């Protein structure tokens, strides 16, 4: 598709590895992961069946971020992480306040965090049948200011736009685990179409609370595996048993190439295509043949005008769930069937290292993909020791790989059967 060239000129990530993309990248190249024992705040006796996650560790907060306003305003923690990640991306890009005035902000958020403190307000002094809603309404002013009930879903996008004075479109994306990828994809399309020249795009999420993790466990999505300790997130391994949640946020600065070059910016990578699809199969499970995933990857390639043979790397959705990893492998084999190109592809699953950031997941994964394009280094899929018989691609098991990465895809698939794929390319001044 014709249109303006779009490049990534700023990165920001908050994950269990810490509060900078540089730390995340270096730890991932070392083959580390940040998954550790975890229980919801509300359960203190270790009885919660989900025992591991990749939470953000506030002890890693660098001194220069101590005073960030995100920590002072009443916000859900996911919004705090997102705001800090967006600030990092802006600083990384070298943009100044005047540049940002025309920027669009596209942000993804996931399911809200219900605060049990708020639920307690529904308990009347006099017991009755069920919760007493009239009593709750009388105490509505005590609803937690930082809880989801007081936070409109587009709060993060609005906060970022307000903080940086962005006057372009402010869009809140809601496509579950594909959210941040859709935000980046929509921003890419808007710039390419000439609607804006600059965008902050990404997402933030945290499901590390009692009710959301409880529901994910009851649905069979979150693993309660104990055998492997903290090494339980094992995409494509035969012992994988479900997703391991992380939390955090990620944002990128997307910019029209000529604009970026005019101000002396050095792009990390070029975004060249975006594709999305629907499974039309089930709300809770992917199409076992990976049909929707294949459609999204093919759509991204078509959008970029790329031949499948040109792709070197796939940053996989790779959730470590029994269903996803086989379906995604089948989808890759479908799209890259010609000359069995799938045998020459590198496939990497970042969730093995920083967990599943749910609505935000696509953002740090796009960041990692962009860095792979820039540095020709591929982060490993860790804890992959016994590949599933149906998962027979090169998943870069356990060790980072030095390899030329000219073109890469980053996949994100969501509950509800919404799939996205972004095509990135090593930045070169002329195509």
């Amino acid at each position, binding site marked *: 598709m014709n249109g303006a060239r779009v490049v990534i000129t700023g990165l920001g990530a908050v994950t269990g590895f810490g509060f900078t993309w540089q730390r995340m990248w270096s730890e991932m190249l070392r083959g580390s992961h940040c998954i550790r024992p975890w229980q919801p705040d509300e359960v203190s006796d270790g009885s*919660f069946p989900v025992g591991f996650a990749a939470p953000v560790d506030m002890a890693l907060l660098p001194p220069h971020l101590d005073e960030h306003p995100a920590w002072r305003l009443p916000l859900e923690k996911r919004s705090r992480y997102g705001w800090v990640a967006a600030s990092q991306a802006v600083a990384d890009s070298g943009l100044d306040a005047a540049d940002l005035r025309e920027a669009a902000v596209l942000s993804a958020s996931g399911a809200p965090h219900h605060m049990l403190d708020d639920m307690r307000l529904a308990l009347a002094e006099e017991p009755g049948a069920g919760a007493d809603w009239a009593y709750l309404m009388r105490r509505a002013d005590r609803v937690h200011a930082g809880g989801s009930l007081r936070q409109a879903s587009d709060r993060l996008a609005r906060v970022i736009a307000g903080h940086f004075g962005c006057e372009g479109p402010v869009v809140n994306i809601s496509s579950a685990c594909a959210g941040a990828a859709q935000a980046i994809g929509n921003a890419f399309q808007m710039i390419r179409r000439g609607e804006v020249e600059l965008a902050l795009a990404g997402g933030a999420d945290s499901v590390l609370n009692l009710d959301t993790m409880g529901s994910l466990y009851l649905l069979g999505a979150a693993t309660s595996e104990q055998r492997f300790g903290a090494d339980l997130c094992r995409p494509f391994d035969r012992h994988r048993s479900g997703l391991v949640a992380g939390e955090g946020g990620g944002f990128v600065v997307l910019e029209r190439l000529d604009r970026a070059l005019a101000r002396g910016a050095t792009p990390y990578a070029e975004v060249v295509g975006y594709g*999305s699809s629907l499974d039309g199969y089930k709300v809770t499970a992917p199409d076992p043949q990976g049909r929707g995933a294949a459609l999204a990857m093919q759509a991204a390639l078509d959008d970029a005008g790329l031949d499948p043979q040109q792709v070197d790397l796939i940053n996989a959705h790779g959730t470590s769930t029994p269903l996803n990893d086989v379906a995604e492998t089948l989808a890759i084999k479908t799209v890259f069937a010609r000359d069995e190109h799938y045998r020459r592809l590198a496939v990497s699953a970042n969730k093995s290292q920083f967990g599943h950031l749910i609505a935000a997941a696509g953002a740090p994964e796009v960041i990692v993909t962009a860095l792979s394009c820039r540095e020709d280094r591929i982060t490993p899929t860790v804890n992959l020791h016994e590949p599933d018989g149906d998962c027979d691609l090169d998943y870069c098991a356990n060790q980072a790989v030095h390899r030329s990465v000219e073109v890469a895809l980053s996949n994100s698939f969501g509950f509800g059967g919404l799939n996205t794929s972004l095509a990135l390319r090593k930045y070169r001044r002329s195509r």
Partner: protein
Amino acid sequence: MGAFTQTIAIAGAGCVLPGGAGVEDFWNSLCAGRSGIVPLQSSLFHGNRVAAFGQIPEEVRQACRQDVPRNLQRYCTPAVVLGVAAARQALQEAGVDPRQGHLRFGLYCCQGGYTHPSLDAYAELLQECRGGDDGLDLRQLSARVLETRALDPFLVLKSLSNGLSGVVSLAFDLEGECNAYMQGVAGNQAALREACAALRSGRIDAALVVAAGSELDALALAELARAGIIGTNGARAFRPFDLDGEGGVAGEGAAALLLRRSEDMAAGPRVAIGTIAAQAELAALELPGEPVDLLVCHGTGVPAVDRRLSAVLARSRPRHATCAQPVTGLLSAAPGLADLIVARSSLLRQCVPPVAGLERPVSADLPFVTGAPQAARLRSCAVVGRDDNGFGACYRLDYADAR
């Protein structure tokens, strides 16, 4: 294919809104000035300060459930059910069926700003688990949730921000591209923008744009009241642009549009979507440069604010103006789509519905139609909406009959 000059037409529309289930029913309510705003009814809560709501009658909800396959109903919030019904109407009017497979479809969805599942779902559990120093025995709650599955495990799916897109795609076997948003005016604008761009690029042949949401939840209403978006004087009616306005009244509902490239449609009267503009502040919004025959717009029910809005909106120099909000209330998810349906119906019928209940306009800036519907020669229309955060969006619609 690929030309960016192609016009995009509304080939079908559907709605389940206060005042009407289906476009015809909704139009009749608009023309009759029959509001869907009723005394707030909930079996679980009541309020004196917030006394009215744009509500979908229970019998309509039940009828809409017939549109949702039984195996999908457990994943649906009430609003998602309305969204599926609206989508089905839009597909039917356009005469297209995704299952026939000869068209490439895209799906673009918007949900309301508050998608937390109603705390109703927790009510019995919370009562069971009373105890402890601060009112709730968390150990017991955790055990009941996890060991006896007392909590609906589908609650997290019902609260998913893309529940609407998931269920609509499954209900109609859609496999094409998809985007999902969670905002009111801004989300509708983003969905329509991406849908039109996908049609113009040639990636798809038909775009289904669906929005659904509801604020019929005690805490959501309390938060809207705290933010000053809905009135708290016990008002029973919503009177935007009226000196007797007493603040907003929330509403619920769903709307859907089926968009196609004009060139792909049979000859006949049609309404095309022209320019789409958006701005973080309504006052800075780019409005049509030429006078329009009709303006469909949003107000707040706060006279001082509506007076300022009128001055901004008057820049579009409309010959007629109307507002559907006294019938629907403030829609959390479908404000833009509902207004586009009003505008399209007006253009196709060459008739402007009145602003229900408008008796004392806040200013003379806008030529609102009052009392009875007014026949008019309508060729162009501007639809201007605003979110409670000031975000504004403007669509230009044009009527043509190529026969």
